[in-house]
């Protein structure tokens, strides 16, 4: 075991910068839809920002669903050990 280091990727300033870059990228991918039209196959998927909202909320739903099922299905990982 080594003591925790001060790798540039783990510094709070870098992490803050990464969040900013991330948010800018997200904004750009949505804004680009003004320049590059998305021709939806079923109407609704061509709406502005549909991909972003659909992706985000399906993930929220799946994490939420997993959490609910987890409450039912999770056991200590020694459960099957005799």
């Amino acid at each position, binding site marked *: 075991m080594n003591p925790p*280091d001060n790798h540039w990727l*783990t510094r709070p300033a870098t992490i803050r910068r990464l969040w900013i870059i991330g948010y800018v990228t997200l904004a750009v991918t949505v804004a680009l839809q003004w320049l590059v039209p998305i021709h939806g*196959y079923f109407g609704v*998927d061509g709406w502005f920002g549909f991909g972003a909202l659909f992706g985000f909320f*399906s*993930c929220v739903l*799946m994490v939420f669903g997993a959490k609910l099922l987890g409450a039912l*299905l*999770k056991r200590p*990982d020694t459960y099957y050990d005799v």
Partner: protein
Amino acid sequence: MFESLPPALALIGGALLTAAIGSRQLRAFVVIGAPLVCLYGIWQVPDGVSLEASFLGYPLELVEGSPVRRLFATIFAIMAATGAVFAFNHARRTELVAAQFYAAGAVGVSFAGDLLTLFVFWELMALFSTVVVWCGGTEKARAAGVRYAIMHLLGGVVLKVGIEGLLISSGSLDIRALQATDFSTWMILIGILINAAAPPLSAWLSDAYPNASPTGSVFLSAFTTKTAILALILLFPGESILIWVGLFMVFYGIIYALLENDIRRILAFSIVNQVGFMVCAVGIGTEMAINGAAAHAFAHIIYKALLFMSAGVVVMRTGMHLCTDVGGLFRTMPITMWCGVIGALAISSFPLTSGFTTKTMISQASVDEGLMLVYFLLAAASAGVFLHAGIKFPWFVFFQKDSGLRPKDAPWNMTVAMLFFAGLCILLGVYPQLLYPLLPYAVDYVPYKAGKVLFYLQLLLFSGLAFFLLLPWMQRTLTLSLDVDWLWRKGLPLLSRAGSRLGSPLVNAAQARLGGALNAITTSARNTMGHTGPLGRSWEIGTTALWIVLLLMVYVFAYYLF
């Protein structure tokens, strides 16, 4: 002369040589060379039946070529060779031998022209993949291997029942498109689906694969489920129930992977998820869908093996296998990390990776058929793949917290194997034209359209946002998640214990009664046939001779009279 032999023979020969050769260097040469010889053989197989035999009067078609068969066999051989490069320096000899037999089974299934030949190679795979699981070497690997073997032998029996039934009803063992309309065809379909890890019997996969050795799980990830996909393509294209089976697998894989803590088990669940996409495509059954299933299987074997290699290096170097134990490994394992990230991007079908150029064909097929619900569920699942495999795997293994571990990066041969597959992931993403001509039907598909790329970027990047915003909910816990296998791992023992408690007074009474009866029988037998009894005591020779003379006289009289 070489051209007329089944390509699988090269791998069987390689396995036998590997078992026989003592020198490590020479063995490495064989383990890597045999799949390459096999690959050459695969591309010599012409379309149509090229090798026939007969067994117990049944005509067998040992080798039948077609584009889709060659495609699957090709990726199996490439996988066997690259897996050998990854493994030869670290795996036990038994594992290398078993892996080659296992790959031979997969190649054999690919070219099987009749169901009997298919069945024989199918069982070869079941047998030797079990050995690969056992090579994990731990008590858990032994137990998981036994459960794995039982499940696959059961699947084999179900398949065989179906094959026999089909032979009786139709008189033909030929592999052709069937429909699940009667008992035998249903048995064949179920037997194949067990190998595809379809519900309700998916648990064998996530049970066994993570218990294999770091090299063994790389081989395991490739062959069994994908031969099942090929069998479905050949036997049940357009069987519409497969659409829903596939969609169930897709979401089962995501949910269980989200709950999982074991690094390789996350990847195992995501195999079920990815195979679900292919099963769904076979269910759609159009030319576009079958092309999509085949292309996706090809790309999937590469990036899934790459992910298992990356995870295998971590398990080998750290000795840890839980997300909660590792983290921060990017510092000292940059190559393993980058290869893992490329595999993760490919499985999430990020633009410029092989996942994008293959999986979107399946979505396109659902659009062409007007299956709106299927299309949106597949899109949601694509977001979910990025969530459970695309970010979760690299994040928890290589970043999250600093675990304080500073393991060395991968050894040279493992690096070579990983870089090769990582390169293929990108190559097939940038030049899908390399893969498209090999697909079963002519490809009329443009993967990169600006609008579509933008849609997928929005979808995936915002799933990423969801991951990091929900991170407090994603923290791993020291838990496992119950599956259907609870029924026999816990339920049956509980039932038998409860049964013996409740039933013991009855059983005791029955045993006493039975014991009394048995005692009476043995006593009477001892009295008549013991050495003092009338039948058992020894007689003098004279008496014996007298008896023989008497019996002979009776015989002669009887012969004379009748």
